Each structure stands twice: as structure tokens, then as C-alpha cells.
């Protein structure tokens, strides 16, 4: 479709130009709160998501990410604070907002009785889209999700990765202003994850606003322009992955193992090496600008780790620093 492609690129240029002048706020949350009885699932959080941005919510299970997503998806009503999505209040304009959202839930909710293409058709109809228009759109979505050959399969016959891609394709059927993905790659094998990341990256390149929750730091680093680290319903930190690492961690990390029984004891002797030490049950993390140098210092002290590894700092380290806990437990 060269004609469309041309129009599309023109639109994108316009979007880029608009972005340069003033970023348009798609989601604004102020003091956003959700309580279930006495339990505060989301505790007065503030954030803004701009057009064309890929915004991530990073945190362990139970951090309040999914609850936040449900409120942004205009399905779950907030208990307190303010929330504006696409310029409207979800409490009073839920259907109007949802008409322009794409939602990929944590748990696939495809219709098992319907074929792959029928799932897309039925979903498109919910947005009031004409069948004729949908027929063309569905072909494009199937190709994008690499499911053209599976169009007549029942969804039950699809692999986990295919189901996810179909759910994402379904979320794109109304060409949403915001695509929301809740734990998009949880439970997928590494290859399926990479295919999915590639698809999502493509959408990001096209200027689709993405909101992603994840507890995988590599996913957050790959896909998100900006992150909000959440724990126990609160925001712990916010920024781009690089900014967060710079602010809350060192350039490199040296991981040393002395055997789980000895780690705590040895850690006392390591004081002064690197900028900070983190003692985990199975290993000691030494935060430093130069990991190799630290390792030399340790060996000079006459200590000989069973294994040692120097790596770049990651969001995992940021999270550990902020909460004292690891992301994936």
C-alpha cells in the first residue's frame, strides 16, 4: 500500500514535529490510589505519559503494576486521586477512552471457540468498525503477528508465543492511541520473547505510545524510553533506564561467590572495596567503576572466590538498591 505508506510517513513526520514543540500528555495521574478494603494496592502515585513514548512499569509481583494498568485501561475505578487519559476522566468517560486504547492483558483472553481471524473480526466489531474495513486490517494484522498461515486455526492450537502475538494484534485492531501491555513476555521461551520484542520495537518506531509492565529488567531496558520502578504500591524511582542505572548504581558490578556458608563472613573483609557492597544469600555484589580492579584487590587480600564475574550494571541492581530485594524471586 504505497499510498498509505506515504500518508503514514507524512503523519509520522507531523507527529515528530509536534513532539519537538510540546509533548502531548496522553496519561496524567496525580495521587492515583486504589484500595481493596484495608489494602492499598496503589498508594498515591504521580506520573505522566507523553505521545509516542514507551513507558514502563517495573516491579516485582504484587507491586501494584497490574492494578495501575487496569485503572489506565479505564476498567477499574480508582479509589482516590486524579487520572486523565486522552484528556478525559475514566470514571465518567470509560467507553470513550477505551475506544482508543489497545489492551494486552497479562492473561490471554482469546475466544477459544473462534478461529484466529474471527477473534480479530469480533474484536474489531466491538469498536463499531465496518466489516469491510476490518477484512483489510485483519490481513495486515495477521502478517504483522506472523500468523497469516494460522488464520483458520482455533486459538487453542496456537503456541504461547503465537497466542501473545494474536492478543497484541487484537489490541491493535482499532489503531489505538495507547497500546497497553501487561507482562507481555511472562511465561514465553527466549526465542518467542525475542520475536515479540522485535514486533513491539517496530510499533515503538512507528510512534505508537506504549505502556508496558514487566518484572524483567532486560525487557524494560530493551523496550522502554522511561521507567517507573514500583514496589508495594509506591513509585521508588523514575527515569530512563540509563539515567536510573547512573543514579542508583555504579558502572560495573563484580559478582563473587565464596560458597553460601561463607559469603556473609567474607563480606566483612571486603569492606572498602568498590563503592558499595550487597550481600545476597548466594553471592556478593561489589559495585564499582572498574570491576576487574576490585577483583585484583580481593585476590591481594588472600581471598579466593569460587567464581567471579564482572558485568555492566543493570536495572536489577537499581531495584536491589532501592528496595533491598531482587526483582524475580
Amino acid at each position, binding site marked *: *500500500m504505497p499510498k*498509505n*505508506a506515504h500518508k*503514514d510517513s507524512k*503523519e509520522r513526520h507531523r507527529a515528530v514535529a509536534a513532539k519537538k514543540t510540546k509533548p502531548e500528555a496522553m496519561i496524567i495521574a496525580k495521587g492515583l490510589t486504589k484500595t481493596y478494603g484495608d489494602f492499598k494496592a496503589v498508594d498515591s502515585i504521580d506520573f505522566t505519559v507523553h505521545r509516542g513514548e514507551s513507558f514502563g512499569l517495573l516491579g516485582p509481583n504484587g507491586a501494584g503494576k497490574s492494578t495501575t494498568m487496569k485503572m489506565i*485501561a479505564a*476498567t*477499574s*475505578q480508582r479509589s482516590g486521586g486524579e487520572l486523565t487519559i486522552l484528556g478525559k476522566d475514566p470514571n465518567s468517560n*470509560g*467507553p*470513550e477512552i*477505551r*475506544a*482508543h*486504547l489497545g*489492551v494486552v*492483558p497479562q*492473561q490471554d*483472553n*482469546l*475466544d*477459544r*471457540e*473462534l478461529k484466529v481471524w*474471527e477473534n480479530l473480526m*469480533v*474484536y474489531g*466489531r*466491538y*469498536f*463499531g*468498525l*465496518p466489516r469491510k*474495513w476490518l477484512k483489510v*486490517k485483519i490481513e*495486515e*494484522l495477521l*502478517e*504483522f503477528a506472523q500468523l497469516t498461515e494460522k488464520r483458520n486455526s482455533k486459538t487453542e492450537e496456537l503456541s504461547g508465543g503465537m497466542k501473545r502475538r494474536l492478543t497484541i494484534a*487484537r489490541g*491493535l*485492531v*482499532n*489503531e489505538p*492511541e495507547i497500546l497497553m501491555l501487561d507482562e507481555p513476555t511472562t511465561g514465553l521461551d527466549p526465542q518467542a520473547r*525475542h520475536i515479540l520484542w*522485535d514486533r513491539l520495537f*517496530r*510499533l515503538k518506531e*512507528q510512534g*505508537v505510545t506504549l505502556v508496558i509492565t514487566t518484572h524483567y529488567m532486560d525487557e524494560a531496558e530493551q523496550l522502554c524510553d522511561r521507567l517507573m520502578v514500583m514496589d508495594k504500591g509506591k513509585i521508588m524511582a523514575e527515569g530512563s533506564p540509563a539515567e536510573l542505572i547512573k543514579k542508583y548504581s555504579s558502572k560495573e558490578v563484580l559478582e563473587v561467590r565464596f560458597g553460601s556458608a561463607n559469603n556473609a563472613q567474607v563480606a566483612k573483609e571486603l569492606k572498602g572495596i568498590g563503592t558499595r557492597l550487597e550481600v545476597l544469600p548466594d553471592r556478593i555484589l561489589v559495585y564499582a567503576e572498574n570491576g576487574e580492579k576490585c577483583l585484583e584487590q580481593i585476590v591481594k587480600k588472600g581471598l579466593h572466590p569460587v567464581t567471579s564475574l564482572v558485568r555492566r550494571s543493570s536495572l536489577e541492581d537499581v531495584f536491589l538498591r532501592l528496595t533491598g530485594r531482587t526483582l524475580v524471586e
Partner: protein
Amino acid sequence: MSIDIANEPKMTWTGAKTIVDPQRSIRRGSLYVAETRIKKMLKWWKSIVAFGLGNPTLYLLSIGIGIGSLVDSSLGPNAIDGVNYLTFLAPALLATAGIQGAMDEVTWPTLEGFVWDRTFFSMNATAITGKQIVNGVMMAAMARCVLQVFLYEMCLLAFGAISWQSVPILLLVCSAAGLGFAAIMLAFSASIKDDDDGMFALVGRFIITPMFMFSGTFYPITSMPIYLQWIGWISPQWHATNLGRAMSYGMPIEPWLLILHWALMLAMAIVGFSWAHRVFDRRLSK
């Protein structure tokens, strides 16, 4: 991983933003839900039609004619309400067909929507609201109900158990019973937590079956002891059956009872809908 971007499929944004009209979804959401439900029903159309024709045929042969000839020979040919047993039984069987048809489309599909496939949650992620899901599911259930009653009527006509003039009004009576009962059952099914599908077996054994047995289906309700008659009074099955008998072969009926029959079925529908609307909205917005 190197990717040839030029040859990779790209999404074109052709302008759904302008095509998607939230107001249209708000106006027609229920119809879209009904459309999906009917589409799914059509996948089973052979079973639906086979059951719709087979079930009445078997019933009419075994009970209508089998037991009917026994009743007619021992009590005389026109002993109950001045008609033969088959004519007396027909409106009751028809009411059962209406209730059963509508119910099949609100019980399991609701569990599917909330628990198994969670399709109601995916509907609600679009502009569709919980109330529209209720209305759409009910519309589809009523389509099934009307079809099932109609097929049953065709069988009854073939057996000479009803007159063709009574076909439209009996269809209306039985659909009203189906509507009232299905609305309540939809709300009830939506209230079932998680995977507790054992509840349906309980409902089947302790509500549907007694309703079928004690609602004056096989004999006038007044021939039962008074302490069992209340089951009929609260059952849509009896109200539809009694009303159907009045409409089918002109069974004498008090005007106030006529109004009461209609009013009770309507009341069940109103209560069922408002209960279902509340349960759906609450469950979807958790």
C-alpha cells in the same frame, strides 16, 4: 539479529482513529455482543436444531402419546380441562423448551466469559460496558429461546397437540418465561466465583427438575397437596404453562390470574436484569 527492515511488515495507520466512533459503540454495544454470541452459537447449529426437534419428538412419543393413552383410557378421553392429555401437556412442554433454550445460553457462556476464557473482560477492554454485555447475552439467549420454542411448536403441530392459530401467542408466552428465568440465571451465573461449576449441577437438580415436576406440567397443579403447590406459584414454568393452556385450548382462567401470570414473568425479568447489571459491572471493574 539483523533484520531487513524494508521487507518487514509494517503497520499502516489508516485512520481507525477517525473511523472508531465511540458513540456508535455506546449506542450499539449490546448488538455487537449479541452478534458474537450468535456467531458462536451458529458453530453448534446442527446440535441446536437436532436437539430442538429430537427432544420434543421423544417427549411427545413417550409421555404425550404413551402416558396420554393411559390417562385418556382410564379417565375418559377428555378428562382434564375437557381436552385430551396431549393437548393438556403441550403448553407445559413448550414452556420448558423456552426456559431451557434461554438458560443454555446464559449459564455456561457466563462461566466462559468470566472464568474459562475471560472473554467478558476482553469485551470490556473495548468501548463495551458490563450492562451492554448483559443485554447482548440476553438478546442472543432470546434468539435461541424463540428458535427452540418455534421448533417445538412445529413438532406439536405435527402431532396435532396445538392449533396453528395459537402458535404466535404461545411463542410469546414461552419467550416471556424464558426471558424472566434466563435473566435471573444470568445474574446467578455471574455471581458464581471462579470455577465453581458444581453449582450448575445443584441448580439443575434442586431447582430446574423440581420446577419441571411440580409446576403442573403433567397434571393440574391443584391435584397436588397445598404444601407443594407453592413451588408452582414461584416458578415461571407454571405461570407460562397455565397461561399457555388458557391461550392454547381456552382453559378457563380468572382475569386477575391472567394478569398475575404476565406480571410475574415480567417482574422476574426486571429483577434479573438489574441484578445482572450490578453483578457484571462490579465483577468487571475489580
